[in-house]
């Protein structure tokens, strides 16, 4: 029983990463209709920026939590402005292929420079150590990841669903011409949205750096799972991705206790099931 609780807690922490990453993906798809395959590579970029800040400039974890997402966001804005914009009028599958190519390039460049075994990033001193929960020893840092990602996810949901800015963004996707006619600068909103979406990935990267080895393969290991999460949750639904992300972490943890070999495949089985029964996803709107 203890083993179960312990795995569930670990699963929840992993779910936090799924939630953060799928949140960014869902925002980008929901508002831009772009399937951002480069999301994993940008997550990896965030982790490397954090590592680079520490390694080359002595800038620690705290500031990195803010700087790295900013850097990744800027990179995203540049990518959107120069490349993605050109393909909006075409089938979204082209953007999928474009971002897939970008992911290959980014990951390949990092692989050449850093090899694939990864750099190490120490857990910040303030968060070292662990708490005795009775059934397991929970490292403070993982608890912190859980809390902070929950906060960020809910804050993002709040901004998109409950504020004026969010409603502008949602309106802009539904009917860009009309919203533009109202005087809102739609292309700029779209660019900013993409930047925000990938900044979330960059933020997740900083969170990941102390626990997972900072290696170029960081993103590709997780991107397919994150896609599955977004599809299950409902491709444009913010709350859907958050809930599904955490839930999947829990389900994976459970699977690890019951039938460990299947823990990697369970998300895809779920995805296939959801797509067949409720194609819009658990929280999506049927189109």
């Amino acid at each position, binding site marked *: 029983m203890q083993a179960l609780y312990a795995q569930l807690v670990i699963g929840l922490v992993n779910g936090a990463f799924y939630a953060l990453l799928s949140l960014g993906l869902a925002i980008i798809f929901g508002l831009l209709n772009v399937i951002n395959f480069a999301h994993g590579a940008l997550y990896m970029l965030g982790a490397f920026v954090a590592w680079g800040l520490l390694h080359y400039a002595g800038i620690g974890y705290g500031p990195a939590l803010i700087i790295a997402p900013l850097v990744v966001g800027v990179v995203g804005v540049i990518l959107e402005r120069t490349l993605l914009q050109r393909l909006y009028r075409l089938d979204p599958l082209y953007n999928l292929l474009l971002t897939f190519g970008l992911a290959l390039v980014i990951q390949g460049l990092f692989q050449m420079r850093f090899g694939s075994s990864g750099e190490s990033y120490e857990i910040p001193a303030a968060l070292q150590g662990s708490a005795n929960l009775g059934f397991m020893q929970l*490292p403070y840092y993982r608890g912190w990841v859980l809390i902070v990602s929950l906060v960020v996810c809910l804050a993002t949901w709040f901004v998109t669903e409950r504020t004026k800015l969010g409603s502008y963004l949602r309106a802009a996707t539904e009917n860009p011409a009309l919203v533009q006619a109202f005087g809102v600068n739609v292309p700029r909103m779209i660019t900013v949205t993409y930047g925000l979406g990938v900044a979330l990935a960059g933020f997740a990267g900083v969170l990941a750096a102390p626990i997972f080895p900072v290696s170029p393969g960081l993103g590709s290991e997780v991107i397919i799972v994150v896609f599955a999460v977004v599809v299950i949750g409902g491709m444009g639904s913010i709350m859907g991705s958050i809930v599904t992300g955490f839930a999947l972490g829990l389900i994976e943890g459970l699977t690890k206790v019951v039938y460990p070999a299947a823990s990697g495949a369970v998300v895809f089985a779920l995805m296939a099931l959801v797509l067949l029964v409720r194609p819009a996803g658990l929280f999506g709107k049927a189109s």
Partner: protein
Amino acid sequence: MLNLPKRIADTSMAVILCAAALGSVTACKKDSAASKGSAAGGKVVIGVLTDMSGLYSDLAGKGSVAAAEMAVADFGGSVAGMPIEVVSADHQNKPDVGSGVVREWFDTKGVDVIVDVPTSSVALAVSDVTRDKNKVFLASGAGSSDLTGKACSPNTIHWAYDTWALANATGREIVKHGGDTWFFLTADYAFGAALERDVTKVVEASGGKVLGDIKHPLNAADFSSFLLQAQSSQAKIIGLANAGGDTIKSIKQAAEFGIVAKGQKMAGLLVFISDIKALGLATAQGLTLSESFYWDRDDGTRAWSKKFAAKRDGAMPTMVQAGVYSSVMHYLKAVAELKSAKDGKAVVAKMEAMPAEDPLFGKGTIDPNGRKRHSMYVYEVKSPAESKGDWDFYKLIREVPADQAFRAPADSGCSLIAKP
């Protein structure tokens, strides 16, 4: 049918484009024809197949290439009047990449001998191809004892170490000190499985019990769920049947979850000096491990290691890299006697016939199943206080003499060993 003109256009276009494609391909291939000719003419080519950028790149990688080059230079650059060339490639820890490179090396670049090859699954594949083409394979990086056991070959010699030797040295040592219940964290491929199997035999033979195991993918990122399972098994010893980057991550993440603090011991079944460097003495102190080579063992190893370190920005050689040097030297000696490198089986037979002694591994012999035999040494990692300088990491616990350190040929299951 109206289709006909279109079909002609289709086919002729395909012809032109295929010609273009093949033309570009042929341009790439021109030099290979040249090297084929010269190999027949008289050149010995050594192929260093290693992991250049992955989790084994520090214990082998570019250091192995440097070791091979040092051996060639120390031998004089040529053997029996033929110049020696060293080529290298990255197998990315994938058997298909490795065997593809080796096949092409044999077919088009006239490579005569493959050395190093960490990652047992690649090594097993390479051993197959080498036997088919009658070349030579000198394995230093890979660990699976199957290379001289059920997968043995008259074209392969296994240098440096193997999983049986590690089990016999480290495993036995830990059980001797009270480690009688084990839980394995195993890398899910040939090496991990072989190591777990060999250590399990030692544990059970000494009256201990294996409470369970968990297999993790090679180069896994997060060991937390595996470590939690190891923790809940309450085994006294958590055996790490993995290597390189995986071992480092396991030990680091175990520290996060307070596993050692709560009373379980981590047993690094295959640990290299490069791993200790990456972990740092504070984390690694007290670890029991076995190596057949340590730079600071005696004057002979110290002298050679300093020369090596000078070429590698001060990084001391690992057991694998020393194995590459030693195996290449012995190979070149055999080729010098035979005056030819063409017949792989003959070269290996010669290598097995000649006594193998060098300052790196001391006195040694080679068994008929291809197992190089030398002493193994059980070490314990020093604490930061005990260490007097950079790379001063080990204190010697005991030496396992050559005749006991490795599995007896009769027990190996190798088809080359005649039944008595």
